[in-house]
């Protein structure tokens, strides 16, 4: 062979070698044969299910009664479990590319809250595509309230509340939303999200204030000029000066999103009324040392274009006044510089501490606080940012009003292709698998959490449109609240009652002895009778331990609940072999309110929890102890393997502990933890080892221990990972380098497929207000309020409130009244003769505010009419 041929051969060899090297870590293993193994477990009631041809069966478990548990269930009617057979999830960082790929059918759903207007337009114009609209982040202006002079003697106009308040008039929120955000948002004036229970509750008050603080630059200039002169500043040649120097406003502008344009806009508005500005453009990382860490007195900024996030429909925002406006919020320099009107401060404190006895009293306090917060305006709320989650028209899924699809808890139960049972759905997301998965302290990356949620479930799941909890595994619950506390219930699965005193029983577990590995009872810990604000009792179904199976075929047991209880305490105890310093803060906050837990009945499982923590909704005041942890569901036997590895120093559940110990961060799906977990499994199975044996052995039998490890071994042999849950899908495989995850329908999932279908679409009311264009003063006038959804009348029972507001010709709020129900979908606003008589001649405006029970997003419509 000639030299040149040899050279060519060597080059080819190198290229092939490199290709093979690239494939080495990524090449998937060939799917092994279906594993059928018999194991004995201590479960009395067996389940037998047939195996369909199209779904491979990973585990076959035989219990004492020789009953076989298969992991697959045939697709019968009515269907059970998830609608599709499988879901392929992969990474597509570009929203533009994702939408193009959706057009061709390559992608069914893009699980990303897209805020790009061009993409939005593209989706709207496509016949093949549709979208879910959601909220989540919101923008504001944070003022530096220090002053009136900074350390170097520069004037800070925003130390004056009246100037901050006047900024409400100087900033056109509609312009920001429509022009700067391309319509992808909604104007916002308050510390309340527009889509929230509290905004809905105070919608009429809010609308009046919004009208009062609408864009009025002339008024803004008038107020600001007066206040500036009061401060000793003078307007020279159109420029505000102080001590001979122009008053320069430093606007700290975030550059990552629309806040760049917003910052420019605000700076321009200030320049228009005589200020000079310095536009300090910075990323979030660069800006944080200045606004949140820096001393406000140093005057490094006057205005910061802030942003916050809400991930779930908020139920109680009463504490937002204290958090965002006062020094009670955070112990950081900016917050500590806040000085408030004493009345507002007191009100904010009382709302923060839930110092009210009825909802009516709270509503009144909130009304006052709203008005005072506008006068304070140390924060100027600008807009709730809206996003879309693109999907193909034939694909349906329950999207959360805030979390969209990626933050939805119901997505795995509801996702389907219209008219199809089975099949595969392709989901793309902008990024995935950046960190290892483990239930206690693993990845909390939003897109990973979406996948993690599909493999697990909680005892209750949040309503995607109202935030209220609905039972998933619970049968019912009772909530007993100390008399006088403002708690109410909405759903009938919760029984709410009140008592003059709620005493923690002596046998309740109140703490954990990490050395002796046992719970401490109230009788041992409390020296006096302990009373609490709230007792919640959860009742699980009688057949739960027979029907709810982990993906590896193991029936759920009380051991899973027990592990959840122990881990609530143990990892924060220094005496524990699993002590993790990073778990201490959360534990301390938990213990601040927790007073005891008691297992009343083991099967059916009934658990009482005593606590001083309560929410205004009884549905949110329930402690379930269901084995769903911060980052996913965890079976006791998989967690046990992790604990064993952590004790041996092989890895740690938390990133903080892993760093401290210079070891790996535990991952149950891929990575260096997997072989260690496999070794631990073999060791634990051989020894019948369980953590916390002292307590565990009272509740978990040796047979169950053996069966659990046996099932997990079979699972690991088949799938090569240890990630199991009881959710509607199981993880078949994750490809971390290729950024792909395969989810398969869990054939053991017991619930009907249509269980959560009622949440497939948010029933946001459409309001159409119709009435006379001219009204004669002193004569009655009636306006029709049509309320529909999907062009169908909105059921009256699903409507919480319909009010109307009348603004007279001077712009003042004249009346706020309740509308009258006529029939489903139709209410009437009646202006009595007396009311019209009070309206001056001119153009008036009537606005209808409709609040639904089904969606925490009020709807509005308004028309003008002339009085003569």
């Amino acid at each position: 062979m000639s030299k040149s041929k040899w050279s060519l051969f060597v080059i080819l060899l190198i290229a092939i070698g490199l290709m093979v090297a690239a494939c080495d870590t990524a090449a998937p293993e060939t799917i092994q044969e279906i594993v059928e193994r018999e194991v004995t477990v201590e479960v009395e009631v067996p389940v037998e299910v047939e195996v369909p041809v199209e779904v491979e069966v990973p585990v076959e478990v035989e219990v004492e009664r020789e009953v076989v548990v298969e992991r697959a269930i045939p697709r019968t009617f009515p269907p059970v479990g998830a609608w599709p057979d499988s879901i392929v999830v992969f990474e597509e960082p570009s929203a533009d590319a994702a939408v193009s790929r959706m057009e061709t059918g390559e992608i069914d759903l893009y699980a990303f809250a897209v805020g790009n207007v061009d993409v939005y337009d593209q989706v709207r114009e496509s016949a093949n595509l549709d979208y879910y609209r959601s909220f989540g982040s919101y923008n504001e202006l944070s003022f530096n309230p220090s002053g009136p002079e900074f350390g170097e003697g520069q004037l800070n106009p925003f130390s004056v509340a009246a100037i901050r308040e006047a900024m409400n008039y100087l900033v056109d929120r509609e312009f920001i939303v429509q022009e700067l955000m391309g319509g992808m948002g909604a104007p916002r004036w308050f510390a309340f999200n527009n889509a929230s229970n509290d905004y809905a509750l105070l919608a009429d008050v809010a609308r009046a204030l919004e009208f009062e603080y609408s864009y009025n630059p002339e008024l803004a200039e008038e107020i600001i000029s007066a206040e500036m002169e009061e401060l000793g500043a003078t307007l020279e040649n159109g420029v505000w000066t102080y001590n001979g120097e122009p008053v320069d406003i430093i606007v700290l502008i975030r550059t990552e999103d629309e806040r760049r344009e917003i910052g420019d806009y605000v700076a321009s508005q200030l320049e228009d009324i005589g200020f000079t500005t310095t536009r300090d453009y910075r990323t979030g990382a660069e800006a944080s040392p200045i606004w949140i860490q820096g001393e406000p007195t140093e005057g490094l900024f006057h205005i910061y274009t802030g942003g916050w996030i809400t991930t779930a429909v908020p139920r109680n925002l009463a504490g937002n006044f204290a958090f965002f406006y006062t020094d009670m919020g955070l112990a950081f320099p900016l917050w500590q510089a806040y000085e408030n009107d004493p009345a507002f401060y007191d009100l904010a404190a009382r709302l923060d501490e839930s110092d009210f006895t009825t909802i009516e009293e709270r509503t009144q306090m909130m009304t006052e606080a709203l008005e005072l917060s506008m006068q304070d305006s140390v924060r100027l709320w600008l807009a709730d940012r809206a996003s879309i989650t693109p999907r193909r028209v034939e694909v349906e899924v329950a999207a959360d009003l805030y979390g969209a699809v990626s933050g939805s808890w119901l997505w795995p139960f509801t996702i389907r292709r219209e008219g199809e049972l089975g099949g595969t759905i392709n989901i793309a997301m902008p990024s995935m698998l950046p960190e290892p998965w483990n239930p206690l302290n693993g990845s909390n990356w939003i897109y990973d959490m979406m996948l993690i949620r599909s493999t697990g479930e909680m005892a209750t799941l949040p309503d995607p449109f109202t935030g209220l909890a609905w039972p998933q595994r619970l049968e019912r619950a009772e909530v007993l609240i100390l008399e006088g506390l403002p708690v109410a219930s909405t759903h009938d699965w919760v029984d709410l009652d009140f008592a003059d005193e709620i005493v923690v029983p002596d046998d309740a577990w109140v703490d954990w002895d990490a050395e002796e590995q046992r719970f401490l009872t109230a009788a041992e810990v409390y020296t006096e009778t302990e009373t609490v604000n709230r007792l919640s009792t959860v009742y699980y179904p009688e057949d739960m331990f027979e029907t709810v199976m982990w993906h590896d075929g193991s029936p759920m047991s009380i051991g899973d609940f027990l592990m959840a209880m122990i881990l609530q305490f143990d990892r924060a105890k220094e005496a524990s072999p699993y002590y993790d310093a990073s778990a201490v803060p959360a534990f301390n906050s938990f213990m601040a309110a927790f007073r005891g837990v008691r297992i009343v009945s083991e099967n059916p499982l009934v658990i009482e929890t005593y606590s001083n923590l309560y929410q205004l909704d009884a549905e949110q005041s329930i402690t379930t102890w269901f084995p769903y942890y911060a980052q996913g569901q965890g079976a006791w036997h998989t967690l046990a393997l992790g604990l064993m590895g952590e004790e041996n120093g092989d890895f740690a559940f938390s990133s903080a502990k892993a760093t401290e110990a210079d070891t790996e961060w535990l991952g149950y799906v891929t990575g260096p933890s997997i072989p260690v977990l496999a070794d631990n499994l073999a060791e634990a199975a051989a020894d019948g080892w369980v953590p916390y044996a002292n307590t565990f052995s009272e509740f978990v039998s040796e047979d169950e221990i053996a069966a659990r490890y046996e099932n997990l071994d079979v699972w690991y042999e088949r799938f090569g990972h240890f990630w199991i849950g009881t959710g509607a899908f199981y993880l078949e495989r994750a490809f971390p380098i290729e950024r792909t995850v395969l989810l398969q329908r869990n054939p053991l999932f017991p619930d009907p497929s249509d269980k959560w279908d009622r949440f497939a679409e948010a029933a946001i009311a459409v309001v159409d207000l119709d009435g006379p264009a001219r009204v004669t003063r002193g004569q009655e006038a009636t306006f029709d309020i049509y309320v529909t959804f999907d062009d169908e009348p909105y059921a009256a029972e699903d409507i919480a409130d319909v009010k109307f507001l009348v603004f007279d010709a001077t712009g003042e709020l004249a009346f706020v009244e309740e509308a009258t129900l006529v029939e489903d979908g139709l209410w009437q606003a009646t202006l009595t003769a007396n009311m019209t008589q009070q309206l001056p001649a001119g153009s008036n405006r009537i606005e209808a505010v409709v609040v639904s029970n089904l969606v925490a997003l009020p709807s509005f419509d308004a028309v003008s009419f002339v009085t003569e």
Partner: protein
Amino acid sequence: MADVPMTSEAVAVPRERGRTTSSTFIRVFRYTAIRLLALVISVVFGVYLTILVANMGGAVDDIRRGQIREGVAMMLSMDPDLRQLSRAERDVLAAEYIAIAEARFGLDQPFIVRSFRFLQNALTLDLGRAEHLTSDSGSRQVRQIILERLPPTLVLFATANLFLFFFSVTLALFLSRRYGTFLDRMVIAFSPASSAPSWFYGLFLILFFAAMWGVLPYGGMVSAPPPAQTSAYLLDLARHMVLPVSAMVLSGIFASTYSWRTFFLIYSSEDYVEMAKAKGLASRDIERHYILRPTLPTIITSFALMLISMWTGAIILETVFNWPGLGRLFFSAINLYDTPVIVGETVVYAYLLALTVFMLDFVYVLVDPRVKIGGKGGA
């Protein structure tokens, strides 16, 4: 070429054998020692400079402190249970979270102390733990993070660069012998096309081949789900490589060919080449022995530097094609101020570069008899 220690000593002085061997050994040893020392100093200086730059002279500590506080503020604003805590409890909780996070990032020590520890670790190739990033399989070890991203980068860039290199050199050699032909003029005419970066071509290729015609994938390394069989996986990988490799080749081929062709042209007009032609030697022999041979040091230098340049990947190209390579990793690390990863990538590159430069000195001697280590003009 200017800093390469080559020296042409055409006139050899006859000396005694033993004395010659001894002096050669001393010369090579002295050269090697000095050269190594210079390279070590360069590497130490370069790595420490990287540490300082990556940490912005310690300013990153302030950024981290700010981010930690912002994260705590966000957490407290979002969690309804935490909002139920009293002000004092909330403050304690926030302080605890901040202390834990600051300790995790080592912010409880002055930056200057940590910077020398970073340097020591880097020089001993103890790349340590990433602060934010994890490897694809979930490890925080920088070594593991880099090693996992290396194969995808190598397979893509090796394919493109090796093809680009050998094809352009071959074509340039061919053109240098056909100066002024249509093909030659065409390459010259197209050479400005290389002013556009590869990702620019990538966008167009995606537009045509993926979006409009749908014949090739938009990006990624393999399809989802990845094929189960190795052969199918390789084919799928090759399919996904077509567009990024084409983008790189399109971007580089004309300028590279033009550059080499000009280089070869200079050597083609040397007197000894003309002499060879006059002697009637075959064109192929002239190319090999009279043009390629004296240009080998340059070709090898270029080839070696091209090989180690693969280490860095290409940030934008990998982003455009969603390729899980080192370029994107580096980009993520910069965005997150993940100093250990930045330093880790840099220190490995520094070592590779130093090693390459060092080795090249010896390779020159092997391929060019005119070159002598440690001679005049050398180290």
